[in-house]
């Protein structure tokens, strides 16, 4: 079985990175390779890094409420960078009503803040194999 490579990044200005870091540790403990990009990444930088690092999944963490706009910008940037086959998983404070909206935008899976770590790991695995 090949080792999954996952990019974990925070787009936008929001600095709450506890969730992103906890998830990054959980993915590592589950045997994945994690590229952690830290805070305040532009959609373009996330897309370019995802392609360069040849990751299987991009994980975005957004707690500011700007998840719809930021996710759609990252998806667009991935298309422009030739990374449109890389699935995107979005975590953070996501109101239930926005989950179908994110899926419609092209997000592979949504893992809101109360999701157990095991389910986050499964969602990333499922996204990678879809």
């Amino acid at each position, binding site marked *: 079985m090949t080792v999954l490579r996952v990019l974990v990044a925070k787009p936008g200005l929001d600095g*709450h*990175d*506890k969730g992103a870091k906890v998830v990054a540790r959980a993915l590592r403990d589950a045997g994945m390779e994690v590229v*952690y990009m830290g805070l305040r990444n532009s959609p373009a930088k996330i897309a370019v890094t995802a392609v360069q690092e040849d990751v299987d999944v991009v994980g975005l963490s957004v707690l500011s*409420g700007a998840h719809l706009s930021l996710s759609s910008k990252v998806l667009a940037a991935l298309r422009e960078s030739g990374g449109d086959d890389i699935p995107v998983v979005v975590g953070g404070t996501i109101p239930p009503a926005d989950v179908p909206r994110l899926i419609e935008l092209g997000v592979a899976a949504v893992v*809101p803040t*109360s999701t157990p770590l095991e389910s986050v790991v499964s969602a990333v695995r499922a996204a990678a194999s879809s």
Partner: protein
Amino acid sequence: MDRTPEHRTASGLPIEPSYGPESGRDLDRIGSPGEFPYTRGVHRDMYRGRLWTMRQYSGFGSPEATNERYRFLLDQGQTGLSVAFDLPSQIGYDSDDPDGEEEVGRVGVPIDTLADMEIVFDGIPLDRVSTSFTINGTAAIMLAMYLVVAERQGVPQEKVTGTIQNDILKEYVSRGTWIFPPDPSLRLIVDTIEYCAERVPRFNPVSIAGAHFRDAGATAVQELAFTIADGITYVERCVARGMDVELIGSRLSFFFYTHMDFFEEIAKYRAGRRIWARIMKERFGATDPRAMMFRAGVVCGGSSLTAEQPQNNIVRVAYEAMASVLGGVQSIFTAAWDEALTLPSQETAELALRTQQVLALETGVPSVADPLGGSWYVEELTDRFEAAVLTIVDRIDELGGMVACIESGWVQSEIGQRAYEDQHDLESGRRPVVGVNRHAREEPPPTVEFYETPPEEVERQRERLRRVRAERDDGRVRAALDALAATAESTDNMMPALLECVRAYCTVGEMTATMRSVFGDFQQPLVV
């Protein structure tokens, strides 16, 4: 009811079934209220002399809405204002900057120029109200704006009271509103401390915050230890500038979260006062009692609140507020019960304030200084807490101090590890939380609502910014920004140059970009 199998505090300190007279016998270590080492409080008569300040955090979408909320809160008997800024204002972007377009007005008020700050404080007399600003990266700019608003009201600088958080070190670790690298950021902080010491003596130019470590997942012990280590760094930098240690010490205050472990939180404030008093006296040679006093403001709520069964948060906040008072803190912010779900309404914000008023006026708790002093358990826990904190502070000294520990990512990693363990404890039920992993009931997943700034308010903000840019004196703006760049290159205090920029209606984005061109950007260590 099932109980925690292991008996430890939330930070992991062991707890015995009961305590007896073998604990808390060293009366010199404990001292008396108002006396060194201040274990029992910084005032002899504590809340008899003066109640704690009831300070509610607010900031809404636009300068106009913020002003309206402030007038309401002052009418309700609140005694101090607290300002929350939106993210672009915290990181130095103007409201029309594409990098911050999703965030204008979202988590607080947008401030682009002096014109916005004038609206926020319109009709609020700055010689009679004290204001606390949760601001770090752009703290010196916001302080300059507040001082110019006071100036225009005819209030001299020496009468202005309040606090700016201005604690950049914890931003590198947990909240992320850093702009410049640590060295120039620390220089700006020392500039504000020095300027306030000389010109604005009633203003607290730095509030050293542990609360954000807590939000990132730190235990209460780590929260206090990292905060003390940050405090040591600020004092060292001020001393290196040649400032008088007595003056520096008297200007500092601290800021924490009070969470749910009742006695541990009380022990935290008692231990914090004792540790800080010793550090100021023994490490820095302070002799004036005011320079040794650990004055703390606290927030009750934050990550101790749950989105599930959210009204349980009313009870949590009430216990946390009582622990804070028994711990002898100087100001309290009680979060609204719906904070984990949305921006508080007027009604829930009022209930949060009433929680403190009931505690202050009906329970009798504030009548006696340090009512738990001499409790065998509380004294023992205070001792253990102190020892655990000092172990971490010593380790940071060995690793070269807090700046080195932040640049290497050590602090971030220590907190990240604890946050990860805590998530497992929560999911496995080792840490019980009512409504989440105990006594949960079938309910639809909690709905989190974000405050969406009405588009017309964002547009009005951008329109005001355009108008200010069009109407201001461009020559004065250019000269002020050039002088700011020149001052940044020198070792002079930055505050006079910032004050002139503010008076010239330079924008927050322009001032930040000018300083960034000299200071550079912080390179974040990418550790989890």
